[in-house]
């Protein structure tokens, strides 16, 4: 999702030093001067260079309540006019042209019951009266999950979102035709002042992904893995127990077969074949059920405002692997263990 939203950015110019804290991969960076965008824009092979000013801005909805509450980040920034460099796309209305005009992502607008033309307050945290002139989408969705975004004019962004005017978090650069990301970075580096670096757009997207994976998704993935491990354990024990009972109930029948001349091996093989058949059938049924649940979740999450990235459930290995060891081990173990008395 982030990859596709920032695809148009070929290079990012930013402060080289990051103040990182443990557990945070991206850290806080010094701002760069906004007018560096003009310098960068003159370098050969640069198609566009725009400052990216970032800050916090909480929209107040039509009912007077802040949109998004205490949950997801509420971001504000300058509305980048170059459509290739802006991860947001204008879906309705127009871009902000004068002070006080803003574009908000469509999801935030719907949540706050705000429409184009409405005037509301943006807390940056100082309250700013803004008029909504456009609605934006992020990578084709109504927003980046539940994050709200408010895009202002560069002047407003500098005024309200940064400590001092003339500072931006970074400068987004788009290469001209035939210039690769690496070539662009190589050309930019000589013109940059000390303490400022250029990285390719790809590296920037990877850093973003890494930040999100390591911080939020990392915890989430661990939680899910632990949870599925517990489920696997419980399932294994239940299946093992059930099958042990089934085998015990068969003792009489198995004893009869033994009395009629069946060898120990024949009885064991019969039970194992049955166990295998049951395990395969049950695993297929469980897998089908899991696919159904996954499909349901895939429909449910976007409905709740958490659109899924590219790739679907079947590209994940876990749902394919889990049922097999659980079913096969637990069904196979009991017939191998209990003693088959001859009578």
């Amino acid at each position: 999702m982030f990859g596709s939203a920032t695809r148009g950015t070929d290079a990012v110019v930013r402060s080289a030093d990051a103040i990182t804290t443990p557990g945070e991969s991206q850290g806080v960076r010094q701002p760069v001067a906004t007018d560096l965008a003009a310098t960068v824009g003159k370098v050969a092979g640069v198609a566009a260079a725009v400052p990216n000013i970032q800050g916090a801005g909480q929209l107040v909805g039509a009912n007077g309540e802040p949109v998004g509450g205490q949950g997801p980040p509420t971001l504000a920034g300058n509305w980048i006019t170059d459509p290739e460099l802006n991860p947001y796309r204008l879906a309705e209305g127009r871009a902000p042209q004068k002070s006080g005009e803003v574009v908000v992502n469509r999801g935030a607008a719907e949540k706050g019951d705000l429409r184009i033309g409405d005037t509301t307050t943006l807390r940056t945290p100082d309250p700013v009266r803004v008029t909504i002139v456009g609605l934006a989408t992020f990578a084709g969705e109504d927003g980046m999950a539940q994050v709200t975004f408010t895009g202002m004019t560069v002047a407003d962004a500098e005024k309200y979102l940064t400590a001092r005017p003339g500072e931006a978090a970074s400068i987004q650069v788009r290469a001209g035709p035939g210039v690769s990301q690496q070539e662009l970075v190589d050309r930019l580096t000589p013109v940059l002042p000390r303490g400022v670096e250029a990285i390719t757009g790809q590296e920037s997207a990877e850093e973003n992904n890494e930040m999100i994976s390591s911080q939020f998704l990392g915890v989430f993935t661990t939680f899910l893995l632990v949870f599925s491990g517990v489920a696997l354990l419980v399932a294994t024990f239940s299946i093992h127990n059930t099958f042990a009972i089934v085998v015990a109930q068969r003792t009489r029948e198995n004893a009869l077969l033994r009395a009629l001349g069946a060898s120990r091996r024949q009885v064991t093989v019969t039970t194992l074949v049955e166990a295998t058949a049951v395990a395969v059938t049950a695993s297929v049924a469980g897998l089908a059920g899991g696919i159904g649940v996954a499909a349901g979740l895939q429909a449910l999450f976007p409905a709740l405002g958490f659109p899924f990235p590219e790739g679907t459930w079947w590209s994940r290995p876990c749902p394919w692997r889990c049922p097999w060891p659980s079913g096969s081990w637990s069904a196979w173990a009991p017939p191998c263990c209990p003693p088959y008395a001859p009578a």
Partner: protein
Amino acid sequence: MTTTTALTTTRPAARVVDAVKVYGGGDTAVRALDGVTVTFPAGRFTAIMGPSGSGKSTLMHCAAGLDTLTSGTARIGDTDLGGLDDRRLTLLRRDRVGFVFQAYNLVPTLTVAENITLPLDLAGGRGDPEWIDALIDVVGLRDRLHHRPAELSGGQQQRVAVARAFAGRPDVVFADEPTGNLDSRSGQEVLGLLGRAVRETARTVVMVTHDPVAAAHADEVVFLADGRLVDRMDSPTADRVLDRMKAFEVPS
């Protein structure tokens, strides 16, 4: 496997010598068999009788190789069961002995025909089709071959079990209370079948029963009490067996 059908009554089909079987241990040990020596001659129909708990079923199980003796020896023909490993014991059960149980113990998912040939199928052989065919006529189940056991009466099911027991032409067929679950008419049919099998085809049958009428179908009755062999009776009749049984009930 010997396929002898010799009519000599002197050759033992099965024999136990000084058989002792103790269940459990310590204070709760139960001496089910206490030094029993008995021979079941080939080509004869022998009934084992005795009051409940006298050890008659235990004797049969040990003689048939379904259970092992604590001490003493059990033989089928010339084979000492005590010296057999699991595989040889399986082969012996497969080829040389047949069983008829009180509860029929047919496999409910198989048809009558499949139940009859089950021991042969387990052995992986085809058996003797003519013998099986004749057997089906003897037990009178030709029109029921493709029915399931649940669709048959108790007497019919037990006749299937008898046919199954004889399907592999075993040296000895052991029957454990074969008429215990049957009404008297069905019981008579089954007993008649066992008797005919012995007399007409020179098979050997050992039957455990507590019913004097059933015992009267046998050539010989052996009486057990408290794990010991206490009496034998040739050419029994129901009245004589009943009189002998009554003697056990007198408190000693």
